[in-house]
């Protein structure tokens, strides 16, 4: 009896192993079959089964197919969705493919697909800015950047795109107005600092960052109350001086690059005046006056 049970259990084990292998192999074949028939719902179903099996998970082919299937699904079903989960799955598959395919078996074939998905992320980053969803915009741009890095896109172009993208967010946040509230100011300061971290010589970012600090100081001055106690007055003065000091190096940098010459001269004149440095304030005032003659 014991022997019979042993044989039976052995048979069951062998059968289930064989069946599992068959299912996985079959899943991969079926996925390929449905890709050829352009039936991507079924292809998605079978490629997901294959991708979750340890035998296939390290095969570049699975991830190449999976990225292709999800790209097609995205195109058909979620093209208008700025936060498409089908596209996310496609991006995950692309990422895995690039990690696994060290032999470069599928990468050349995959490149147009990667470029396509990257371009959709870039466009949707811009669309998310228009919708004032900056978190999603940043997220989409991060995907775009990552995919472009995978295909070793030109670094200068990518940097320029990143700077343009950040300026676009800054413009959307400020809505083209000089006057911003403290929350907007905080966001803008961070954005301009991010741009300067990429390109410390970006004249526009230097100028705009300086202006944010300077305007914050001016706002405090304009809202000061004559009745303010002396101790508060001193503390406020300290705060204003710190803001003007923060504004100064960025305005000097913008001036160095001849950016909006009259505006930077006006800015330097005012910043130095605010810092009680009459001599330097007068120096830039004179330069401004001779420029305006």
């Amino acid at each position, binding site marked *: 009896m014991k022997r019979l049970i042993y044989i039976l259990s052995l048979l069951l084990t062998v059968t289930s192993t064989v069946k599992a292998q068959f299912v996985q192999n079959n899943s991969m074949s079926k996925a390929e079959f449905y890709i050829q028939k352009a039936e991507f719902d079924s292809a998605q179903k079978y490629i997901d089964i294959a991708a979750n099996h340890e035998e296939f998970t390290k095969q570049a082919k699975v991830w190449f197919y999976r990225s292709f299937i999800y790209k097609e699904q995205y195109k058909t079903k979620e093209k208008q969705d700025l936060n498409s989960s089908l596209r996310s799955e496609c991006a995950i598959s692309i990422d895995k493919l690039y990690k696994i395919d060290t032999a470069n078996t599928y990468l050349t074939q995959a490149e147009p697909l990667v470029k396509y998905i990257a371009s959709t992320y870039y466009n949707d980053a811009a669309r998310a800015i228009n919708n004032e969803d900056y978190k999603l915009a940043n997220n989409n741009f991060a995907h775009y950047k990552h995919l472009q890095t995978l295909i070793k896109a030109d670094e200068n172009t990518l940097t320029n795109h990143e700077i343009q993208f950040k300026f676009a967010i800054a413009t959307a946040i400020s809505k083209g107005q000089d006057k911003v509230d403290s929350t907007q100011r905080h966001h803008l300061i961070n954005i301009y600092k991010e741009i300067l971290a990429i390109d410390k010589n970006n004249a526009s970012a230097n100028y705009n960052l300086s202006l944010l600090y300077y305007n914050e100081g001016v706002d405090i001055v304009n809202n000061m109350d*004559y*009745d*303010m*106690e*002396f*101790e508060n*007055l*001193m503390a406020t*003065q*300290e705060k204003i*001086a710190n803001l*003007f*000091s923060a504004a100064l190096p960025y305005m000097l940098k913008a001036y160095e690059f001849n950016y909006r010459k009259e505006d930077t001269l006006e800015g330097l004149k005012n910043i130095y005046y605010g*810092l*009680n*440095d009459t001599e330097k304030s007068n120096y830039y005032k004179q330069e401004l006056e001779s420029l305006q003659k």
Partner: protein
Amino acid sequence: MYNFTKYIEWPKAYQTGYFVFGIVGDTPLYDELTKMAQTKKIGNQPILVKKFSSASELDKCHLLYVTKGKSSELSNVIKKVKSGSTLIVTEQEGLVDKGAGINFVVRDNKQKFEMNTKSIETQKLKVSSNLEALAITVK
């Protein structure tokens, strides 16, 4: 300047009528003080702002601000106001040693002030110790 008036006591004779801010020389401060005078009082006294181009034109002031450009007139200013109770405020390094009661100076890009209590008391003014504590130097 407005804050200084909170820490200094003028003699009884100066506590009625207008509180006069005098300015010797040109400064944007004149417009600011004039604007402030429309809404503020010193105690119960309304504010009057007067502008003088030289020491010879001076008359009764509670607080007299001598602009940097007119610093050389300080000795004449002191002679002119010595019989009254005028707080003299200047903005030139070293003038606190030459008879100014309060002198603005710039330290680390910030406006600070020095005080000469002897000069202030000579003008029969009483100065609060709290103001002394806020000055960077007290003579």
